[in-house]
């Protein structure tokens, strides 16, 4: 087990290294002179030269990369072109909002999908199962930004029940905070619900066909016990790992939902920075998101191997 973890860590380092190369080269993929683009049309030549020196863009590319990497490892992600704030601080300020949104979205999505998936898998081909499958197909087909807009239209404009945008801190006003959270979380988690429901259902079907379930029933155990003690644990392990990976994906994937609901997270930060041509911030967000995604996947993977005794005891 330990050997496996070490091997995975090594592999993760390689991937992180390659990610850093890609993120670094993003700024060089811009057609045209990145400095002029960042500063705008009215930039004076001295400003251009100054920014060029500041971003080390006048040196050979390998040296640039090494300097950039050194700074990143020290925690220096550069300064935002627009607000002159350190990029890392800016990102860390906005990250908690995204984490809250992702957690809420995942929470709704997982509870609903696992519940639906288990029952649908148990009562395969029943009316309930077919409606669940239709529901899952719809979930996957409806774009989340359209859903967000429709939800705003219905709950905020028409019913005036929930606020259509913004964020409220839980510590200041818990009820309003949750009200602001509901619609964005529903939108962000909707598509995931479809995937997780399907997966839970197919896992449940697979497990229920296994021999040990037949044995448990033949032993005379109550159906409830069979399901709860034997079937669920095995069916849910892969589902839990997928949910874990979805969390990593959501951290970078809530961009559009955050834009629609004016949710102050890193997704919205990225979009704003893109319109401002504030590329150091964009690089910082992409880098951190990718890192977090890889790390979360690593943790989920290890956790999965730990949970599943068949693999743990190899």
């Amino acid at each position, binding site marked *: 087990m330990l050997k496996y973890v070490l091997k995975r860590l090594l*592999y993760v380092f*390689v*991937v992180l290294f*390659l*990610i850093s190369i*890609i993120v670094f080269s*993003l700024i060089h*993929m*811009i*057609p045209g002179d990145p400095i002029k683009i960042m500063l705008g049309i009215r930039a004076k030549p001295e400003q251009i030269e100054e920014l060029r020196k500041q971003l080390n863009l006048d040196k050979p590319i390998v040296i640039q990369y090494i300097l950039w990497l050194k700074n990143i490892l020290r925690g220096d992600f550069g300064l935002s072109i627009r607000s002159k704030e350190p990029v890392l601080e800016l990102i860390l300020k906005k990250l908690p909002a995204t984490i809250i949104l992702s957690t809420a979205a995942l929470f709704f999505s997982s509870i609903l999908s696992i519940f639906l998936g288990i029952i649908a898998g148990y009562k395969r081909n029943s009316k309930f199962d077919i409606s669940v499958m239709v529901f899952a*197909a*719809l979930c*996957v*087909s*409806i*774009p989340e*930004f*359209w859903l967000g*807009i*429709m939800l*705003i*239209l219905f709950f905020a*404009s028409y019913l005036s029940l929930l606020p259509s945008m913004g964020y409220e801190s839980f510590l200041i006003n818990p009820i309003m905070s949750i009200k602001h959270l509901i619609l964005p979380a529903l939108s962000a988690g909707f598509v995931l619900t479809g995937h997780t429901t399907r997966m839970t259902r197919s896992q449940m079907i697979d497990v229920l066909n296994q021999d040990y379930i037949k044995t448990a029933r033949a032993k005379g155990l109550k159906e409830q016990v069979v399901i709860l003690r034997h079937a669920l644990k095995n069916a849910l392990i892969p589902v839990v790992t997928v949910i874990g990976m979805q969390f*990593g*994906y*959501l*951290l*970078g*994937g809530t*961009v*559009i939902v955050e*834009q*629609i609901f004016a949710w102050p997270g890193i*997704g919205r930060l*990225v*979009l704003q920075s*893109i*319109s401002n041509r504030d590329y150091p911030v*964009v690089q910082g*967000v*992409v880098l951190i*998101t*990718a890192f977090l*995604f*890889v790390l979360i*996947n690593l943790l989920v993977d290890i956790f999965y191997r730990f949970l599943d005794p068949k693999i743990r005891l190899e």
Partner: protein
Amino acid sequence: MMNKNNRNIKNLDSKKIDSFLITSKKDHFIEIIRMFFNNKLAITGGFIIFIIILVAIFADFIAPYDPFLVDSSNSLAPPSKLHIFGTDQFGRDLFSRVIFGTRISMTVGIFSVLISAIIGTMVGAFAGFYGGIVETILMRIMDTIFSFPTILLAITLAAILGPNTLNVIIAIGIIYIPIFARVVRSTVLANKQKDYVEAAVSIGQKNFNILFFHILPNCISPIIVQATVAFAEAIIIEAGLSFVGLGPPPPSPSWGRMLSDARQYMTDYPLLAIFPGLAISITILGLNLLGDGLRDILDPRLKSSNIGLNYKI
């Protein structure tokens, strides 16, 4: 008993036997077509997509108005006999714009999937077949691309390359290469062990020919299933990119952009946002149904058959 036997033997002529066995590629193909039409999911999905593709191709003839025709005096009109869906904020006919939107979505979908599928298949095939350091390097690069959340990577690439249709196609194409690479690689790995490969090697067939003519045909079915999934996601990503302003520039009738424009007028004129969104949803639903149906048909079939055997060795 005797009669039954006699009857059975009489009925068992060579024609009947042939119809049970699939002895040629043509029979196999016909069998797949037959299964397709028997599968409700595939038929429904296929039908929806077929209609949408027809609409995209014949948009000029189906749409009652020019989608770019501005008519400010008639802006934000509700549905009427003249304008089935009503008009948008510039007086353009919404129905025509939705129809022409199919062109953008289909173009982006088809070409980006083509790029991903071709490059991804090559990468996966080489990685799976040759193994060793080639596989390690290629798959690590694939994993790296895979480590970025899709929307974020799409937005970043589209922002950097510039907002137009071609760049959207390139961006989405790059993002989906790893999925095809993984699928093809695992199929190639599974097939490498099979007997017909050993047979081909022992006759002295060149490696590349083995890969291309024997192993790859077995990869076609997972590639097709993956392609429908990628197509659907490509359309959603294109809509998302257009929504945040990074897609085809205005006045393109991209559905995503129509949604974004509609946000301002949503409370008073909700139809502006409802119709494009419905168009996207129906298209994606069709693709998903088609993909599910194809998966049902193709996967278990091709596990049991061996197309490689039907080629001249």
